[in-house]
């Protein structure tokens, strides 16, 4: 296929319409796209994508005061400093806890809700779906004040539970919609067959539907993890105690310090990036199948 830029440079030659139909190749006709029309724009985009990553790596391993553009000589002092003096070790643990708990809660609650939407007709179904859609327009950041009051009332300020709850709630609408679409793609007759064989609804779901849902669940779960890992306002608002803070808040502190320590900022950034990049690289394949199965066609 073609990009806008590419077409300007080299308009595809008009094919004479009277050509006899050629035998169709295996694969499809996009294989005819000239290679340079793929590699050139892709390379340009890759440079744009990778320079910031390179830059942060460079700053993280460069000794203070160096202006070299190569990461040599290499030092890990920034990492040590950030991990111990700036308590990124603690932040990291907290973030992992928040991320994993959000992932589990979101997936479980959304699985239940998604199953109900996919397989049942019930009275409040329409209202529930409308609620899910409307909540997409509710800006989480703007509900900070009432949420703060609720958590204060529940005595949850300064406990990670408040952030986990808030992150879960704001992940739920999209997760439910996604999961219910994934479940709709699993033929109902498969489940019915399992009932005939003597399974109850739950076992039928567990042994028939759940394995087929794996790509979808990975997509939804990783979404929840990555979002809660990166999101910062809830943690900033609901956790006052430094011991309870998460990685993004730590990064923000590094950035707003009076004299910004660029080496520390870069090292902190890498510590923040590594888990999500690893998760992401691992799930990339499922993510796209997961999305094409259910996301956009809600």
């Amino acid at each position, binding site marked *: *296929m073609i990009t*806008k830029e590419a077409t300007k440079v080299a*308009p*595809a030659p008009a094919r004479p319409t009277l*050509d006899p139909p050629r035998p*169709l190749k295996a*694969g*499809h006709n*996009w*294989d005819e*796209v000239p290679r340079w029309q*793929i590699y050139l*724009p*892709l390379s340009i*985009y890759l440079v744009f*994508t990778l320079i910031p*990553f390179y*830059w*942060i790596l460079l700053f993280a391993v460069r000794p203070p005061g160096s202006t070299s553009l190569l990461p040599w000589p290499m030092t890990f002092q920034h990492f040590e400093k950030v991990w111990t003096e700036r308590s990124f070790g603690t932040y990291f643990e907290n973030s992992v806890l928040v991320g994993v708990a959000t992932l589990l809660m979101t997936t479980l609650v959304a699985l239940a809700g998604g*199953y*109900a939407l996919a*397989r*049942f*007709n019930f*009275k*409040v*179904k*329409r209202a*529930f*779906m409308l609620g*899910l*859609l409307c909540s997409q*327009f509710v*800006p989480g*950041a*703007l*509900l900070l004040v*009432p*949420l703060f009051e609720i958590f204060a009332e529940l005595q949850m300020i300064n406990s990670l539970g408040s952030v986990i709850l808030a992150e879960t709630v704001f992940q739920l609408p999209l997760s439910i919609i996604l999961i219910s679409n994934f479940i709709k793609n699993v033929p109902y007759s498969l489940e019915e067959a399992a009932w005939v064989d003597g399974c109850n*609804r739950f076992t039928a779901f567990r042994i028939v539907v759940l394995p087929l849902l794996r790509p979808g669940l990975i997509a939804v779960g990783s979404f929840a993890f*990555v979002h809660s890992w*990166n999101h910062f306002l809830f943690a900033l*608002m609901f956790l006052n105690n430094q011991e309870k803070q998460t990685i*993004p808040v730590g*990064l923000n502190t590094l*950035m707003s310090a009076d004299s910004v320590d*660029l080496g520390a*900022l870069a090292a902190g950034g890498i510590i*923040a990036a590594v888990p999500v*990049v690893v998760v*992401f*690289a691992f799930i*990339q*394949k499922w*993510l*796209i199948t997961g*999305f094409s199965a259910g996301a*956009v*066609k*809600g």
Partner: protein
Amino acid sequence: MAQAAAVAKPPAPPRRRRTSATPRRLPYLLIAPAALLMLGFIAYPVLSVFYYSLQNYNPTKPWRNGYAGFDNFVHAFTTDPVFWDTLVFSAKWVVVEVGLQLLFGLALALIVNQTFAGRALGRAMVFSPWAVSGVLTSAIWVLLYNSQTGITRYLADMGIGSYGTSWLSDTSTVFPAAIVADLWRGVPFFAILILADLQSVSKDLYEAAEVDGASRIQQFWHITLPHLKDAIVLSTLLRAVWEFNNVDLLYTLTGGGPAGETTTLPLYIANTSVDAHNFGYASALTTVAFVILLFCSMVYLRLSKFGGQDK
């Protein structure tokens, strides 16, 4: 959604759904956790925002608290010098950002949908910034834009820009600088969504078009684009709402500055409530933001004839 509307008609459709030993309560039990969480932590806060918008509410000035009627709204629209500026900037931000993301995201999706050597690696690299968001994006671009050691310095060596200026503290460069930083992580997201939908275009259509002698550009306009329409409409809308609401990036990248040049309405609201503790006024602004979002989304869906009969 048409689908949902069809199945949700009050009398249960005559399908043999209830043949199993399923208690009628089961669906309600299943949605209960989600429904309760959302009622408690989304619906109730939304309602209390509406309530506070009619109040003077500032915990640091409790003697002035109480019912205010529509004073907060009147103040916003008539006497607040910042409000209109933030509205204009929000509109500018969303339109430019989402427009560019759509354009580049579409191009990128079309490219990585091809078969070529190194595709898996290429995709993974191109998509990787998506995983990096908010504060981390800001941290990275703060490093890049740093006036002493950032990339600006090396660009100045090559005659692009000038020495010692940070693009983030200059009113003439801060907008494009912030746009580029946000594009970096926003384009991959768009590309992923569009790529997902691209993969479901039937190859037969292209083969048929090929036989009929359609050029690649014609195939794009008459097969690919119509097929992607719903996905594009929906992801553009979600992205616009997200770009409008998201404060993480601008809050940490520019803090809304310099001189309020990059303050969106939500950022202004966050500052009003978190820093100035003026919760009543912030709630009124939130209400305005909410109404604007709903209105724009409805107009957009109507204009784009989303889910119309053309498919």
